[in-house]
């Protein structure tokens, strides 16, 4: 969905009040010299139905990293109400969320509001982040016209940047940078794998580890992170 389309769309669905509040958070620019310790990261993961074009979010899990510390109090976990979830058997086998569980989740509008308020203007972090960001945008756009404005940090890319600095990107195998591979390499226990909150927690542990390593390489400020 490009800006051109946005401009001429005739979406008349009402935009909720909280979205305006959310957008205002981005009015002030974050100075590039802001130390990483002063930033709030929200590490997240989503579980979805299948991998086809009509896929839907079933659950969201997230936990914040502030001042280099994972803060359990500042976490988020929700199961979405998806009554007509076209849930494939293969997907159920991965995340273990059954259609009956999906039908007992929280209403989508409520979840979206809760999520937007929780995340605020934090830097969003996920492993292969683009997928999760796309899914969150799709969730929002199912209700009203809007797109996440948060900066995004991909732990897979950060790991590559730290481990393979200056190397020709074509020689780097992405398969060595899966969450499983990295966890094994850095001795991170993989409990509750393939639950949204479980994966978010694992990714958060990977993030604090990578940030500690980054600091040693003088990656210590907001601009050093080179966020998209």
């Amino acid at each position, binding site marked *: 969905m490009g800006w051109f389309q946005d401009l001429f769309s005739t979406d008349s669905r009402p935009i909720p009040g909280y979205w305006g509040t959310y957008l205002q958070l981005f009015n002030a620019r974050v100075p590039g010299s802001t130390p990483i310790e002063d930033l709030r990261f929200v590490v997240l993961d989503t579980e979805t139905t299948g991998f086809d074009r009509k896929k839907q979010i079933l659950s969201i*899990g*997230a*936990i914040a990293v502030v001042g*280099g*510390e*994972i*803060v*359990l*109090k*500042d*976490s*988020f*976990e929700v199961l979405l109400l998806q009554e007509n979830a076209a849930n494939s058997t293969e997907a159920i086998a991965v995340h273990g969320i059954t259609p009956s569980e999906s039908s007992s989740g929280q209403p989508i509008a409520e979840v979206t509001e*809760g999520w937007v308020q*929780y995340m605020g203007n934090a830097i969003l972090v996920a492993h292969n982040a683009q997928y999760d960001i796309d899914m969150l945008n799709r969730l929002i756009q199912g209700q009203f016209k809007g797109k996440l404005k948060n900066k995004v940090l991909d732990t897979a890319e950060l790991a590559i940047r730290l481990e393979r600095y200056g190397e020709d990107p074509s020689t780097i195998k992405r398969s060595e940078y899966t969450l499983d591979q990295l966890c094994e390499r850095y*001795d*991170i*226990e993989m*409990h*509750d794998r393939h*639950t949204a*909150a*479980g994966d*978010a*927690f694992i990714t*958060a*542990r990977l993030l*604090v*580890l990578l*940030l*500690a*390593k980054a600091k*040693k390489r003088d990656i210590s400020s907001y601009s050093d992170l080179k966020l998209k």
Partner: protein
Amino acid sequence: MQPANTIVGRVAEFLKGYPPFDLIPYEELKTLAAAVTITFKEDDTTIFSKGDPPGAHFYVLKTGCVMLHDSDDRLVDQCDEGDIFGVRSMLSGKPYVMRAQVNKEALVYQLPNKVFKPLIERYPTVALYFASGLASGQTVLRKQEQEAILSTDLPEEPLSLNERVTVEGKKKLVSCSSTQTVKEVAMTMSEHGVGSMIVVDDVGAPTGILTDTDLRKNVATGQVAITEPVAVVMNSPVITIPNGLPVFEVILKMIEKGVHHLCITVDGTDQSKAVGVVSERDLLLIHSNDPAVLLKEIKQVKDINRLPALRDKAEKLIKLYLENEVSISYISQIISAINDALIVKAIAYAQAKLKEEDGQVPDTGFCWISLGSEGREEQLLRTDQDNAIIYAQPTKGMEEFTKSYYLKLAEHITQILSNCGFEKCPADMMASNPKWCVSLDEWESYFKGWVMTPEPKALMFSTIFFDYRFIAGDKELVVELDQRLRKMMDKERIFLNHLAKNAILNPPPLSFFKGFVVERSGEHADEFDIKLRAMMPLVDAARVLSLDYGLIEEKNTMKRFEALKSKDEKNAKLYEEAAQAYGILMRIRVLSGLEHKDSGRYVPIDKLSKFDKQRLRNAFEPVHDLQRLLEVKYQLSFFQG
């Protein structure tokens, strides 16, 4: 919005695996977990330094390794997964006294004091955990371990009392009708070899009971003729119980009703069919886990071949006691009493046998002594025999006969003990060795030789023979030996320096890290010799100090430390801790030995629970302190032994 349940649950689950968090109910633990923050620390990062103001939280290590150093920069402890640190400051609210430095990349859980402290107040066991100084780097606070770990009493109800009284289905109840004559019934009883007979009606319900006692009291005395029907002599009504009641309920019923027999019926009333009878004696057999019963059985046994089975029973008893955390000093006393009774029985049997064989007995007495760990009453598992005979000076011309008689006696005794699972000593330190079956004067000259020429072999003998303990025979001989040795110790003080030097040869390690022993030098080893590195140093220290203070009669290590407390008051606290440490070491060794079916000497560190590792580590401190005490007291750094 509630924090993510999956994540909080995961952290709570982790904490639950380690003390003292396992003492906190799970719901509370989740509240604590929800307040946790997690950080990652690179190698060499200092988490806190000595003098830093107290933080808002304390720490639990998730992965990696953190070293704790004291103010003199000595390594105090090495933390691994599940270890807690920064506790002293959390408890006292005072600045840190140690330095915590990351040795290997560490994922550290930070637990806020604000949330944790109310839990300490709410759960006394958690408070006790910290009071006993089990957390890392907290060794300075160690104390009252005994309260936390050793209960001094027996469990109120021995487990055997919970066993159930049941009738074996196959065994048919021997019963009779009330119209049968006394003679008929008595004949049936002796035919089946039973001591009682249930009298039943035509549907098989019990109407009375006839016992041996009734026959003896009423029939044998002529009060009732043997031609009379049993209805005349039987006891009625019969007290009935259902099948499967716990032993203690059955005993209570007997006491309550003042009877020695109960009848088991189908529904427990005397209106249904009788299926069995239970006597007080039956219960005593079930209840034979009672040490007093076992001891009595050993003392009363007629067939010497029954002894091994009885000693096996004692082994089961030890296990039961250990599982129930009965205090180690109580267990070792019981086991010593059982072993002693067994030896006494073996001696009596051997004496009778020799008398039967050739009739001639020396006219001078003897006594049997146990040596080494058995002398110290510290033998929980059966090990090799270490024993000896002291005999009184034979009358002139009887020397040769006396010696050969006692040797023959010892030969029989050691064989019986060997049959009971006490293997013969490979070094032949037994009464059946002509060298260790000698007169009192000869014993004195042995000791004198070791004391005057304390070369390595003499010191080795000293560690075994000075721990002699009277078992049976003429006690005067041991009393006399005690007196002669006390005089010897007063005169030959230099011997104590040699003995002390010998006692500090094997320093204890510092701590454990994962499956390794951490030495004070910081080095690692994967095997832990609990006997050499922790128990023997305590035993040796207790021996040299009690010989020094004239406590010749005291042999047991814990009792020696106990007695030393009043002789050397300024070190009373250390002696107390040393005694407790010894108890803990004994327990860990015997449990390890029972589990791995060996002597328990080499403890597999990786198989120990976190709690046992902490207990063990804390037991090293008094060993270390005691060795320092010996070093100073006997000036061992200047002493060329």
